[in-house]
């Protein structure tokens, strides 16, 4: 298979290339690094557009040269420049031509380092791409030769999340990584004025934790009974008063990748970033892969 890396000549591109290298090293996929430039307008008499176009092409080529220097030697990568009406559309066109199954992007430079931040291109893709989208946190770098060590699947206990976990297990197996199934309990203290004190909510939280623990055990068994289960499967529940704290609560390491599913309100064959996924993504300290619902189902069917 192939993955497309959206490359722009700045630090965003760098983190995208690093992420692609890490993923490709694990999966053995081909990497296509792509710089999208605006498509030409109708040619005019003055050839102004053509000059501008030539300038854009040269910028893109320079960017690709930079990218060439960035890609580690052990990764087979091709570099191309593509003209399109918009960057997301261009990336999807290239993906279509190469039958790619993943688009890799960096974070917007408008956010903080170490977190995944959506920019205009990633935002558009995360709500409409027909293939999976991987996002690197801002400033993401991976060491030479490092690979995906663990795939974490975000799990909310719904039946559709079960399928996502199976799909993530399949991905983990292919990447020779271990699988971790993570749930997040985000709760905060409630009104004191109910005259019940502050403990009733803890009771509810414990009940939730127990139910969730049960569901996690079940889905873990489901993963264990696959034809080719990942080498190691663990489960974890992160507690916190905010999403940031809950996500921090489960430990993260180099070589971690977080897989989140698409919202069930989006179309089956496309990714659609749901409200919870957005929160998870915003606070994730590791690269995030968002997979389309249809694809996750397909993968789960094949694996099961």
């Amino acid at each position, binding site marked *: 298979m192939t993955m497309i890396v959206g490359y722009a000549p700045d630090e965003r591109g760098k983190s995208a290339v690093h992420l692609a290298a890490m993923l490709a090293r694990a999966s053995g996929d081909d990497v296509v690094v792509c710089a999208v430039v605006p498509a030409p307008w109708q040619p005019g008499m003055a050839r102004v557009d053509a000059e501008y176009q030539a300038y854009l092409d040269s910028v893109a080529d320079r960017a690709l040269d930079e990218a060439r220097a960035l890609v580690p030697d052990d990764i087979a990568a091709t570099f191309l420049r593509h003209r399109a009406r918009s960057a997301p559309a261009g990336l999807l066109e290239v993906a279509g031509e190469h039958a790619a199954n993943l688009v890799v992007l960096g974070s917007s430079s408008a956010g903080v380092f170490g977190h995944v931040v959506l920019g205009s291109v990633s935002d558009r893709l995360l709500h409409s791409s027909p293939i999976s989208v991987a996002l690197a946190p801002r400033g993401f770098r991976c060491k030479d030769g490092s690979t995906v060590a663990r795939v974490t699947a975000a799990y909310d206990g719904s039946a559709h999340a079960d399928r996502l976990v199976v799909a993530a297990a399949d991905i983990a197996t292919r990447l020779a990584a271990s699988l971790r199934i993570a749930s997040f309990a985000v709760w905060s203290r409630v*009104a004191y*004025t*109910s005259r019940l*004190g502050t403990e009733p909510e803890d009771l*509810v939280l414990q009940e939730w934790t127990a139910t969730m623990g049960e569901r996690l055990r079940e889905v873990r068994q489901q993963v264990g009974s696959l034809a080719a289960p990942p080498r190691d499967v663990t489960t974890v529940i992160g507690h916190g008063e905010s999403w940031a704290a809950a996500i921090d609560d489960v430990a993260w390491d180099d070589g971690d990748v977080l897989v989140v599913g698409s919202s069930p309100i989006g179309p089956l064959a496309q990714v659609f970033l749901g409200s919870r996924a957005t929160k998870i993504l915003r606070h994730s300290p590791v690269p995030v892969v968002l997979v389309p619902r249809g694809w996750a189902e397909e993968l789960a069917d094949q694996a099961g």
Partner: protein
Amino acid sequence: MASLVQQVFRRKPVTEMTTETGADTGKSELARSIGLFQLSMFGIGATIGTGIFIILTEAVPEAGPAVIWSFVIAGAVAGLTAICYAELASAVPVAGSSYSYAYATLGELPAMGVAACLLLEYGVSSAAVAVGWSQYLNQLLDNLLGVRIPLSLSQAPEQGGVFNLPAVILVAMCAFLLIRGASESAKINAVMVMIKIGVLVLFIVVGLQGWNSDNLADFAPFGFAGITSAAGIIFFSYIGLDAVSTAGEEVKNPRRTMPLAILIALVTVTTLYILVAVVAVAAQPAEQFEGQEAGLATILENVTGSTWPATTLAAGAVISIFSVTLVTLYGQTRILFAIGRDGMLPAVFHKVNPRTLTPVRNTIIVAAVVSLLAGLIPIDFLAEMTSIGTLVAFLVVSIGVMVLRQTHPELPRGFKVPLYPVLPLLSIAGCIWIIQGLDGITIAVFLAWVAVAIVWYFLYGRGHSHLGKHEHVGLPHD
């Protein structure tokens, strides 16, 4: 097989409770972050907002202007029990309020009885408060837009309506918030309390302009009996002082802070109430109170001859009563949750929705029942039922303090009742005194209701109790 007596009086060990909820294991260790001011605000916030806006309409016809004394008596009794709550809460810091305290100190059957009382204290009181909200909403709409919700849709059948729709809508809105996972911070609470206090102060200042000593001439037309009877109803508006006690685990320096906060809240609330009552009965002849909708607002309207103070008051009441309905409904769901967790209610009550982290079905059931009550039953009956339920729950807590001193003298107590055993005994006497002043029919309905709970216990709870089956729930033992 244990004998029946052993069975119905089996107590849930305090250690089991604290392990279950992680009180000592640090699993949900709470920071001691609440200071005296904040804690007093909890007490004041939890107390003001339920009764005072709507209760004069019920209480004045019983006692006449002497309702002022009814406020003092009700406040004193509420204060005594709040102090008893403080000790139990510091010794048995678990969820479920007096239900859990009774389970730990008196046994399973009494705990079920208390649960029946708490259903009145929370479930019925949220219905009562929602009905009061509907009256104020009507007043506000009338003042702002000149429209009123038709009588048939804003009153219970007994009062000439068909269904109290606004009350039902309020309950539905609160249930929706609770399902989504309502979390109000202490800061928002403090702001709300300020609004409530501000509104009452406005009433006092403006209402004072309408002072007419003639209205006080026939001070106690129904004598002492009338005063007691009114105190029973007014007690409803003092419920909430025990809120202070429930924060025992999170208070800095609880030995000093808890009793002080209770006293501060008690004095503040009683002062405000008495001033409101004095101003109200002086501004309006006693016989006009009966059957008045949104009483305080109407008084201001008559005093000033313009609608703006009444509009402000109505708006304040609409906001503050909304929050009260929300928290009482919340309390009801969490108490049922605790009972369901002990196995004495069907498992549906302690099922948590994995996505929202809230007991959704529990909330829907509670909201449906409360809606029916609010839609169909008039407020005065609801208010009296709430009073008696709370009084009995308080009674049990006062007894529980003494029982726990005998059975578990070694338990660490963050706060101890002063003048033991005089205060608990006084508290018990006060509760019984107010109870006997209530309507005979209220007591009869209440006894029938408790009987239903006991029948439920023998038919279902006794057999399904986790304690009886030696089943352990919650966090594992270490």
